[in-house]
């Protein structure tokens, strides 16, 4: 079996792994050997085709539909050079002070996260899109929220040369989105960091010894390593595989024995896609898909965002089937869409565990509080759609497929809790958090406030699994800020480890 030796190995190349790689890269000048091991492929530019099923298969785990164990929610997360930063919309929010204070992690200050977040906001060309770049789908949401008196804000986005393909979630075909695959990883490689793609780390064995396997894929650039098993030795290991695979790797490697919180306190911002149909075509799939969010109802447990999805994703997120469903689907050019994100509390029984094959699987039960929030969010969204001029609205917990404009005063009787049954309606998540939460000690957390695993000085975590509770916003800038902290800790300690 081939063996490789490094000073620092980073597992994963998304927002956390990519940021950590770039921050640690200057150590290469001092002779440090650093590698990033990424499960997914690095696609060639011509492979970003924008074709929905093809790109979902190449970039996401299970094409973006990883089921929770209860099969009541699907999880979308990527495997690729750049991780999920390849497939998000580039929304780049600074975490507010409130959630960080509520996390209550000793030694973790909001001011520190803010300073680090600002660095990535500058580095990733984050800005507001000009007004003429906003399509009707976004503009109508903004105007309707204004009419209804709901607070609404524009998303800063990390784009450079956006041409408005609307295909952000399939990997931008114009290379405009400034994910780690465009910014941090190329910079790290230029400074001497090696990035090994198609490489899954199966287990961390004794101190700093990793077992990995490289898989040949029929797409993407070839991995720097031959297909097959590899043994990797490292003085420092930084785990950044995301909120499912980081806890799963640590559980497989036996760390659950002395860390009872490992895998637990998983949160996901459970999401619904809601649809309003306008009487005439609007611009929706042209232009950037996500320009505004409404946090007016955050204290009632949900956020609303503009969104525009592709035909297959839209179809599976509508409730029902048959003629009504098909009629709506054949009017994609008239659809206005809203994404609801429920702010779900971190509960110990919502967790990542290992299945019979040793792979991570999420156990997740919806709290009553989350179900209440989802129900109310559908009514609020319906009001927004009608205020925007929609002729009818589809709500997953509707008593019927369409709620017509003439029925807009009857939302309480037409959108009901009895129809909101997990497993009946399509709930998805792309904001996976927790499982290796930061905290004061090993009884209820996995790492300290610098991402070091309790009791294991050479092992760090640097991704969204560190979040002690949900972020209450789109989390990627905060993940980078966390990774920046972890990199600082590694920089100061790696020589003595």
């Amino acid at each position, binding site marked *: 079996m081939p063996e490789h030796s490094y000073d620092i190995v980073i597992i994963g190349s998304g927002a956390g792994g990519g940021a950590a790689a770039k921050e640690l890269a200057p150590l290469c000048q001092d002779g440090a050997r650093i590698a990033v091991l990424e499960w997914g492929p690095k696609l060639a530019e011509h492979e970003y085709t*924008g*074709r*929905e*099923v093809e790109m979902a*298969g190449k970039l996401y785990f*299970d*094409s973006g*539909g990883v089921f929770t164990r209860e*099969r009541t929610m699907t999880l979308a997360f990527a495997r690729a050079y750049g991780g999920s930063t390849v497939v998000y919309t580039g929304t780049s929010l600074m975490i507010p002070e409130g959630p960080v204070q509520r996390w209550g992690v000793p030694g973790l200050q909001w001011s520190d996260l803010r300073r680090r977040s600002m660095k990535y906001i500058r580095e990733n060309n984050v800005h507001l899109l000009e007004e*003429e*770049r906003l*399509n009707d789908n976004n503009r109508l949401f903004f105007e309707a929220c204004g009419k209804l008196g709901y607070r609404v804000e524009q998303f800063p986005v990390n784009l450079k040369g*956006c*041409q*408005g*393909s*609307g*295909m952000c979630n399939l990997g931008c*075909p*114009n290379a405009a989105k400034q994910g780690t695959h465009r910014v941090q990883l190329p910079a790290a490689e230029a400074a001497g960091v090696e990035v090994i793609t198609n490489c899954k780390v199966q287990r961390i064995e004794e101190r700093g010894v990793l077992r990995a396997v490289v898989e040949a894929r029929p797409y993407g650039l070839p991995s720097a390593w031959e297909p097959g098993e590899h043994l990797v030795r490292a003085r420092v290991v930084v785990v950044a595989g995301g909120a499912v695979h980081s806890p799963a790797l640590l559980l497989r490697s036996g760390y659950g024995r002395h860390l009872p919180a490992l895998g637990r306190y998983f949160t996901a911002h459970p999401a619904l896609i809601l649809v309003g149909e306008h009487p005439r*075509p609007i*611009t929706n*799939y*042209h*232009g950037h898909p996500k320009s505004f969010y409404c946090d007016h109802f955050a204290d009632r447990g949900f956020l609303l965002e503009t969104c525009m999805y592709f*035909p*297959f994703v*839209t*179809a*599976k997120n509508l*409730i*029902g*089937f*048959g*003629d009504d*469903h*098909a009629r709506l*689907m*054949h*009017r*994609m*050019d*008239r659809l206005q869409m809203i994404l609801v994100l429920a702010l779900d509390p971190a509960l110990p029984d919502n967790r990542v565990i290992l299945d019979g*094959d040793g792979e991570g699987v999420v156990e997740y039960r919806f709290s009553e509080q989350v179900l209440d929030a989802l129900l109310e969010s559908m009514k609020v969204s319906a009001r927004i759609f009608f205020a925007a001029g929609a002729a009818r609205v589809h709500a997953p917990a509707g008593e019927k497929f369409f709620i017509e404009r003439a029925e807009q005063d009857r939302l309480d009787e037409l959108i009901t809790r009895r129809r909101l049954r997990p*497993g*009946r309606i*399509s709930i998805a998540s792309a904001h996976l958090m927790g499982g290796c939460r930061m905290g004061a000690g090993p009884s209820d957390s996995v790492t300290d406030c610098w991402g070091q695993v309790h009791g294991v000085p050479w092992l760090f975590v640097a991704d969204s699994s560190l979040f002690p509770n949900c972020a209450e916003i789109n989390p990627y800038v905060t993940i980078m800020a966390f990774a920046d902290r972890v990199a600082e800790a590694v920089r100061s300690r790696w020589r003595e480890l």
Partner: protein
Amino acid sequence: MTPLSERQWSLLLAAGQRIVPPSHELDGEGQRRFRAIIAAALAERPAGVQRQIRLFLSLLRLAPLLRWAATFERLPASRQDSFLRWLQDDAPGRLRQGFWGLKTIVFMGYYGQAELAPRLGYAPSRTGNEKLHA
């Protein structure tokens, strides 16, 4: 190797026409793409998931015998719809999840065909900004 038998494919197509009625109008090439997309998606799933889908298709075929003394394919369209609606809304959890899975692969096979996008009123462009004020 195709993950479904011919009988299972024809059952899937029959259910597919109730789930996405316009799938009835697919020409030969469209039907080939429908099968190819689903076959590729199933082939990527673990063997256990493939077994569950085959099991669910058997159940979909045979369960209507209990109530209507006919297999799913032999039911009139209105009863096929009623049965599918029961699976969606009122069936026990596992069956409801099975129907969700069936619906998802049918949607993938149909709406995942980029060639059908114009029928959906969907014509994405790499340079969408140019179309915003056209």
